[in-house]
């Protein structure tokens, strides 16, 4: 392991870029705490990539690289926030006797977050089609009728959704 060299590179990257990245994130988020969190997470991503690849990532243009990584985190942050809000609204609308147990809620919340992250990469029409199929168990024909599109379009959307979710796992870390 060329650990020492990599550690130095990481340290250098952090010291050189932390301040401007925090400020940039502040302009996106309007909250210095969140900006600090996401800035922190961006560097964590690089640490994870380092760990994952076994060598320090080859970063030619740190500024562009960090902006991309942090930009994705900002988008993801808003996604999580809107999911949480929608989820809380769903729960609030339930009669008290129907509210799941805390343990079940916790598990649902985790699975929901995973599924949402994957579905979020899909265009709205594809996502709606996929939900009707996988969540409601509707046949392609029923979906076609409900959405007033051809069955061929439904199948095309479904294929697009499956392919996208398969490819999404390639890019993680």
């Amino acid at each position, binding site marked *: 392991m060329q650990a020492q060299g990599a550690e130095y590179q990481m*340290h250098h990257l952090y010291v050189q870029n932390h301040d401007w990245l925090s400020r940039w994130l502040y302009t996106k988020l309007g909250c210095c705490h969140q900006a*600090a969190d996401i800035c*922190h997470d961006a560097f964590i991503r690089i640490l994870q990539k380092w760990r994952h690849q076994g060598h320090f990532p080859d970063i030619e243009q740190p500024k562009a690289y960090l902006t991309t990584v942090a930009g994705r985190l900002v988008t993801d942050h808003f996604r999580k926030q809107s999911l949480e809000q929608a989820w809380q609204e769903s729960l609030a609308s339930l009669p008290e006797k129907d509210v799941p*147990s805390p343990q*079940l809620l*916790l598990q*649902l919340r985790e699975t929901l977050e995973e599924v949402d992250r994957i579905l979020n990469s899909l265009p709205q029409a594809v996502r709606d089609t996929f939900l009707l199929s996988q*969540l409601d168990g509707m046949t392609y024909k029923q979906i076609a009728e409900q959405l007033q599109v051809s069955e061929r379009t439904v199948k095309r959307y479904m*294929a697009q959704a499956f392919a996208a979710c398969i490819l999404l796992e390639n890019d993680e870390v």
Partner: protein
Amino acid sequence: MGQAGQKIQVSRAVAEEAAHRLIILGSDESTDEYQQECRHWCQQDPEHEEAWRRAINLQHKMGLLPGWLVKDALQRPPVSGLEQSGVEQPERRHHLTALIGLIMAGPAAYLALSPDARQVGLGQWHHLTADYHTRAGEQQQVELSDGSTVSLNTSTSVSIHYSAEQRLIVLHQGEIEVITAKDIQQRPLSVRTAHGLMTALGTRFMVRLIPGEGQTTLAVQEGAVAVSLATEHQSTSARVTHAGQYTRFDHQVIAEPQKGSAGLEQWRQGMLVAQDMPLGQLIEELSRYRSGWLRCDPDVAQLKLSGVFRLDNTDQILNSLSLSLPVTVVYRTPYWVSVKSI
């Protein structure tokens, strides 16, 4: 096998091919032959299998979510990434200072303290959420970060989700044995299937979920396990199964626990004990241990047989059938086997 560091990359072409096949399987064009062909396609190449696994994994996850409850959240309109949020979460600030000190210590040391690592307990971060699968005829023992072990029987698929609050094993299909270790963080350990949630109150139990059986079977060897149904909203009505008992449950009903183990522990000893078992049931059981196609003609499926079979050599079991029953075993290929009447 889903472990960090050796992840198989899937090309666009393979992803599209897998997606195309899944669409046909989900339509009325699907036939037994086509299913078989898809299984074969998966076995051809690890990349094919990986693509398939990812898609099936998503399907499993979606299957675990109650549609009526999560639909609105998943269907909400998209948000732009550049909106203002206004919600403050100051509680995580201290991580920043932690990071500065730890950079010098290298990633391994960092991981021992990071929020991610906290989720896995002992810093084995590839267990953060990991999937394990066995193919036909394979068994695998997985040691988890808290010292618990999960053993997978043939054709079994599980996901492990360890977080700060819980230790969760999701059984998608197949059979597992779980031996729990005491958790220093005292998180509950549970196994979830499509039918419900089993929370360990003790140490050793086995779970079986086979498509077509329509239910989950649980046998407890040591300690006790509380079962609550997936459709139940309150865990108060959980039913406890004690050591030396087994129970079965589906979406609606948890059966009264019975004495015995419903044969669930047999695979750990590498054997299958049949007592007046219909041939059709035995063949179905064996088919989980073999790649390819193994079927039994309906006119012999009701023949009964008894015996102790070793699961490590299913060919031998098949060959022995014709000695005790009026049947013949036809091998069209090693992967295409049928049992017929003489």
